[in-house]
């Protein structure tokens, strides 16, 4: 049976397709969407797409393009069709991520105190101490309840065999959760009928869950703690998200200039005078958070904050120095880290990762630059990356030189064919595009993962790059009961 309208342009390749098991045969959990799309005329789909885009624009769910006219904002490209995950698939993801975050948190506590995992030679010392995000200032600092990472976004991809594997962890200031939440609101308006037939699990309680997790970590168990969200300010690309989350939680959205440290106590400046602050959900990188302790040229930070933190008068989420655990070179060791702290095998596998600092692996990487994806370890957002099969000879030579000059700074992974999901393409109908999956994990007393995620989609045909800074878009993700 061939693909019916509006799927005439659909094709199945080597990648796993989220919707179709074979040509014209949708997987059971996509059946309802399949049926609905066959009924809807193209004009109606286009109308819904326009309504959704308008909603994003009018709610200000936008980002500003760097260097362009300040007034011109773009919406994050959004695909109209949901990506659907079954309850069974989700259960595996949930338990795998819970295990992974537990282990990474233990790992951080260990390397900043006794360093057992280093003494036991499971992870080499030099990989820790050469990491740009390792903060020696954190040695011996007691963090409340031993929680280093509170909010994590982990990127998963689906292999051609249909297994979810981990591509990378984001333990510093992961963003995108607001797109998960707002795109759900928009989708409820675009496909109200489908929501009912599909039995989609709700995600609206993310704000409450985040607030509860943050409050738990107040210093010295202070009752009724004051939580604030610290943002770099309105010109930050993720400002919409900061403001949105502050509203969802009902907490103050502060900037560095709203806070002042006096006698190692953090205060915020209000119209009624100064108020003490207990927990800071910070969306500013370590480097910029305190000009007295870290980068002195930072104007976003709060002078004296780190001392107040070290004294135990204020909690920062995530902890300073947690970025060492999402270093791309350390990534290769995460399965070993999980076994070390849990005594169990990882539930979610890693994408295979080769370290250029290792001589044999480096040799292999340099011989296969045209087949591999090479990444600089400290970069994110799709920057500092070579995608071998799509690269030119000149780019490969540049990377060869950079790898040889600083092997510690590079890792390589096989070019993984991300799974494909159906996307609405105006003018042609529904076509497959490559997607990944970023669930958001809240870690505290217990681990909470709201049943949803940001599905990032490479909107250009055939492209494997899903980063929003590089032409990626987003999709709503439905986890079914």
């Amino acid at each position: 049976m061939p693909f019916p309208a509006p799927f005439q342009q659909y094709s199945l390749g080597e990648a796993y397709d989220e919707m179709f098991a074979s040509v014209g045969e949708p997987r059971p959990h996509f059946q309802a969407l399949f049926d609905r799309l066959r009924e809807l005329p193209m004009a109606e789909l286009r109308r819904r797409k326009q309504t959704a885009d308008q909603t994003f624009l009018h709610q200000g769910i936008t980002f500003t393009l760097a260097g362009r006219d300040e007034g011109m904002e773009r919406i994050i490209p959004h695909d109209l069709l949901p990506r659907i995950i079954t309850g069974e698939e989700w259960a595996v993801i949930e338990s795998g991520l819970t295990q992974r975050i537990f282990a990474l948190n233990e790992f951080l506590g260990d390397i900043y105190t006794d360093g057992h995992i280093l003494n036991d030679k499971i992870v080499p010392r030099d990989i820790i101490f050469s990491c740009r995000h390792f903060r020696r200032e954190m040695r011996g600092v007691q963090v409340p309840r031993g929680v280093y990472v509170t909010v994590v976004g982990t990127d998963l991809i689906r292999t051609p065999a249909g297994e979810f594997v981990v591509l990378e962890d984001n333990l510093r200031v992961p963003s995108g959760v607001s797109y998960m939440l707002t795109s759900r609101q928009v989708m409820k308006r675009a496909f109200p009928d489908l929501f009912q037939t599909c039995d989609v699990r709700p995600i609206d309680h993310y704000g409450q869950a985040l607030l509860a997790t943050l409050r738990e970590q107040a210093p010295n168990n202070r009752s009724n703690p004051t939580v604030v969200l610290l943002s770099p300010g309105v010109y930050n690309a993720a400002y919409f998200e900061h403001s949105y989350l502050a509203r969802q939680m009902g907490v103050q959205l502060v900037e560095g200039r709203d806070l002042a440290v006096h006698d190692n106590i953090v205060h915020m400046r209000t119209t009624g005078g100064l108020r003490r602050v207990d927990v800071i959900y910070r969306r500013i990188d370590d480097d910029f958070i305190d000009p007295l302790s870290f980068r002195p040229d930072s104007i976003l930070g709060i002078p004296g904050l780190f001392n107040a933190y070290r004294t135990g008068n204020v909690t920062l989420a995530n902890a300073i120095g947690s970025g060492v655990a999402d270093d791309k070179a350390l990534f290769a060791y995460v399965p070993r880290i999980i076994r070390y702290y849990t005594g169990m095998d990882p539930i979610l596998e890693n994408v295979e990762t080769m370290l250029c600092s290792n001589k044999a692996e480096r040799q292999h990487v340099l011989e296969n630059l045209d087949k591999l994806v090479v990444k600089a370890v400290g970069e994110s957002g799709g920057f500092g990356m070579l995608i071998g099969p799509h690269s030119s000879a000149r780019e490969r030579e540049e990377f060869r030189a950079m790898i040889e000059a600083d092997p510690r700074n590079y890792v390589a992974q096989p070019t993984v064919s991300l799974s494909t999901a159906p996307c609405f393409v105006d003018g042609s109908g529904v076509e497959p595009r490559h997607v990944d999956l970023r669930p958001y994990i809240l870690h505290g007393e217990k681990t909470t993962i709201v049943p949803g995620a940001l599905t990032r989609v490479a909107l250009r045909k055939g492209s494997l790059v899903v980063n929003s800074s590089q032409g990626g878009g987003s999709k709503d993700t439905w986890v079914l009961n």
Partner: protein
Amino acid sequence: MDMLSRVADSLYWMSRYLERAEHMARVLDVYVSEQLEEYSGAGDRRWRSVVDSLGLEAPSSVNEGNVGYWLAFDIANRSSIVACIMSARDNARNVREQISSEMWEHLNRLFHQVRAASLTEDWSADQHAFLTEVKDGAHLFQGITDSTMNHGEGWHFIQLGRFIERAVSVSSVVDVHFRDHMPADDGEHHEGVDLLKSCTAFEAYCKVYTAELKPLRISEFLLLNHEFPHSVCFAVDQVEVALRALPQSADRRIGGKALRLAGKLKATLTYGQIDEIMTTGLHAFLAEIDRQCNEIHVALHQIYIEYPIESAIEV
């Protein structure tokens, strides 16, 4: 929840910029429609008077032909209508989580509309439609604000921005009008109509004094009327009400300063007599109002926004 000083500041300026955009749109609309009737010659004096009444100084490149563009569309002019709406919206963006979604969405939409108009349309294309869009947009925002936001502290800062701006801009229009049209009890009064219209006051005036236009009554109405929302007296009353509603500062030295200044100004306007004011000099009287409004503005910032840390540490 306590309000951040920075948030109070942004709410104040958001509202003040939008009030300014609305006022400019009204003054410009009156000028534009009057242009259609005017015979050539008086033009140069007239547009300069408009610029003066808005408290602006035009660069030498501005002339009768492009003054409308400069006042409405030109974002190089930080006081143009589009620039004011942009500033209002930037301030709102800073405090998105403090205002209602309806307020933000409306202001953001208004911004996108005027910005698109200023980029794609020729200023001379449909001036009246554009200015109406701005006026309606500002009125609607005010209504949305009043009906969707808690009438708490933040709302009072919004009121303060709106009414301090209104007091200053109405007294400035009146000042320039009587500078350029010496009050006389007879003669042509279409300038008087224009003055009233630029404060949305023509119909309201007629209900009080009939359509008989006398300069003394016009100035009395715009300065001292208690009931008309665009009179200086009304605006100052609202400023005083809002200040009274704000939490009193712990710092006694400056705590009551803004309220005291507003009370004093209110008394001047409440007990002022128009013939006395005219005798002693309207210009001096209006300059004094302007100065006192500015003092209130400064005191407000000292008390709530830019206070020194040392004096405010909780004990």
